[in-house]
């Protein structure tokens, strides 16, 4: 177990280093100059040179990348103009465009995505596993077909369409909820949940289809196995057979996929954040890419990479815990 975790840790460090290098290279291959954007359209060449110097983009690419790495590990002092502020490790630098420390920007936005990921995951698992089981118990019958049709329709709906439908339905037609406006959990838990309910539903309804299919297939496969037939022959109650044995057969796959999906939402759910006006990482990534804000994009890429590595590791550990045949 410890060897496994150490191996994963080393692998993750290598992946993140490669990601950072790739992000730097991609940005310098792409058109657009962050200094030009920061300086404005009416910027002369002299002013542009001054701004490039202030941003540090006048340095060679390799030097900039090295500075980024040393800043990440050791911290760095940044001039704000009248004074210098110290950015402690792990320091991801200073945003070119919004003039604030990147680490602070990420720390402010990560709770939004954590809230979004955990809440929606709970819902999509509940809906997905529930409907999958519901369908699997009567395969080929009307309820199986109806369930499949419904979840397939929901799963085929783009998340921004689902978001608009939910907003219209809940906030305009029925007026049972206000338009979402993110409230941190620490400020007011009830408001936090109320304002995130629609975003959770939007992601969950679209994502649940995959879990329905996984659960249905897993349960059906297990129910057709010899040991289930034996249990039935011994007269075990059907409810116990389904809940203790059949569902368990489907769980390892469901949990593995869920862990990875949670990692993806944690790394930023752009459409959901945009439609519900949630200030998360996904929206920040898109906006920063469009303004060539390299430190922010690099910071988000590293964080997203780290979250996905953690999610994958968690998936492996959970899979092993649920399925004794798997050893790590």
């Amino acid at each position, binding site marked *: 177990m410890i060897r496994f975790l150490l191996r994963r840790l080393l692998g993750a460090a290598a992946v993140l280093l490669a990601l950072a290098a790739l992000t730097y290279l991609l940005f310098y291959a792409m058109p657009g100059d962050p200094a030009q954007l920061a300086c404005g*359209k009416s910027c002369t060449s002299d002013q542009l040179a001054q701004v490039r110097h202030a941003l540090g983009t006048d340095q060679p690419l390799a030097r900039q990348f090295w500075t980024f790495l040393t800043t990440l590990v050791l911290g760095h002092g940044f001039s704000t103009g009248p004074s210098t502020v110290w950015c402690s490790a792990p320091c991801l630098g200073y945003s070119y465009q919004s003039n604030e420390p990147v680490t602070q920007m990420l720390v402010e936005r990560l709770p939004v995505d954590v809230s979004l990921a955990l809440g929606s995951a709970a819902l999509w698992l509940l809906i997905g596993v529930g409907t999958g089981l519901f369908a699997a118990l009567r395969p080929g019958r009307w309820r199986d077909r109806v369930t499949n049709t419904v979840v397939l329709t929901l799963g085929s709906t783009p998340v921004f369409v689902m978001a608009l439908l939910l907003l219209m339905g809940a906030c305009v037609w029925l007026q049972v909820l206000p338009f979402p406006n993110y409230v941190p959990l620490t400020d007011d838990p009830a408001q936090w949940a109320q304002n995130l309910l629609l975003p959770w539903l939007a992601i969950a309804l679209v994502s649940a289809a995959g879990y329905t299919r996984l659960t249905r297939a897993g349960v059906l496969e297990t129910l057709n196995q010899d040991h289930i037939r034996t249990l039935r022959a011994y007269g075990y109650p059907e409810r116990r057979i389904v809940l203790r044995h059949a569902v368990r057969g489907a769980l390892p796959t469901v949990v593995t996929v869920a862990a990875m999906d949670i990692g993806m939402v944690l790394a930023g759910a752009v459409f959901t954040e945009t439609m519900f006006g949630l200030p998360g990482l996904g929206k920040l990534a898109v906006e920063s890419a469009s303004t060539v804000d390299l430190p922010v994009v690099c910071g988000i890429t590293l964080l997203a990479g780290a979250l996905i590595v953690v999610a994958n590791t968690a998936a492996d550990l959970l899979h092993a815990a649920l399925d004794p045949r798997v050893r790590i």
Partner: protein
Amino acid sequence: MLRPARIALFTAASVALTGSLAACGAGSGSSAGGSSDAFSAANCQGGTLRVLDSAKNSKGFDPAVLYTSGGGAIPRLLFRTLTTRQSVPGVDGTKVVPDLATDTGKPSENATVWTYHLKAGLKFADGTPITSADVKYGVERSFSPQLAGGPPYLRDWLVGGADYQGPYGSGNTDLASIATPDASTIVFHLRKSEGDFPYLAAETQFAPVPKAKDTGKEYNADPVSSGPYTIAGFTKGRELDLVRNPYWSRSTDQQRLACPDRIDVSLGLSPAVINQRLSSSVGQDANAITTDTSLDAPTLARVSADPALKKRVVTGKFPQIYYLAFNLKKAPFDNQLVREALSYAVDRTALVNAEGGTQLAVPSTTFTPESLTAAHQDYDDFPAGATGNPEKAKQLLAQAGHPNGITVPLAYDTDDTSTGAPAATALQQAFAKAGITLQLQPLSDADFSGTVNTPATQPALTLTSWGADWPSGGPFLTPIFDGRQIVTGGGNFNLAQYNDPAVNAQIDKINQITDYAAAQKQWAALDAQLGKLALTVPLYEEATSVLTGSHVKNAYLDQWRGWYDIATVSVK
């Protein structure tokens, strides 16, 4: 000089929070709002105004970095400036009036020295008095490379401005061309005559900044307010809460009514959601407006069909021209006959349709658009009619030695909703009828200005736009047609690269005029004169429609910027 609307697109706060970007204007000058009670300025205080904005890349509120027109929308609630725009609907809203200063400035005889005296009793939100040194420091720090992004005029106009790099760093010097002989007097020494200086003095760079509270790059999150509101809470990209500044008083500020007790701004919302919330006007959204999201064509059609909603729509125009820019240094546009051929071939009806129809765009044959009323003069030297005159264009091309037509690249900004692919495609189709083949050259927003505004990389033909930083012909025409404004290292807007010493001298002469109306007449005449040279093909100006919540009162689009003057809006 002027500001291209595009700048506002990436000067974060300008987009969302200043509303200085593009679009609407006070054409109608009408007041919106569904509430039936009459508005009373004397009794409008109270309540919470909600602002729903899309504001993508909010840079915060550093008055040095903001690029606004007339001080913007929300920044004008936080910052008072030497002068400001007159807060009234209609054409009077284009007038400049005193703000911190007692008048709009006393010019020297040739308008190269401008003197201002501050009103008595002015205070920052922390209770400290506002002095001329604070205004000087505010202007000086806008020269710092760390705080780049503001308008370029100060660097160009002030003596020594071109080499000054702000008050930070080892030198720590001040700018000698700004003198403060006493705590209430400030004098600006310009290197050339600028009759429009009072209009520039309405920009946020003229807001006072107390040196002791300056935190440089970090000042944008918590600036010291001099306006009627101060920041109670601000999370970039999420929300901004404004509360009253106890040290502000209507007795020293005749322009801002500051009716609501609180202003809650939600940032980063989807435009579709903003318009849905404003139209449904449910709960607290009845007290809502937006400072950056107009109605698109389909939504406008739906809203217009509903009489109740239609009452809450205000439309108008912002003085901004969408046009084709020729590069006269590149063949075939060094030949006026070819430029005239394109002027005849253009189909303005197709362009207006590409923009979403006549409710959203109006054809224009003049560079200075009709919405810049004072500096506008009608002319149509190359009458293309509503849908173009391809035959005349072919004839001119043949005369120019291109009987088989021409093939030219057309650069455009893919991220610009107004001058993007739909308009470029409409042009391509219209020009094809005249034997002009356009090879579309799409450029991303991040790449557009670097390519187009640098003469070495500038394409032969560009689809672009130009808007007014303040309502005057000077900032509209000077950067585009003054040969001395050609900047080789980037930031060049004289895309024709046209340099006629006689025109340059004419510009200097008009800049000496400090009488607004007289100067505008001269600018209008200069525009008509330049129009005959076919240096550009004016295409259309945009109209904008914006919704308000049903309880909002006295919400009108000011004609200076073409957006709500949030300082006069009431929810009581």
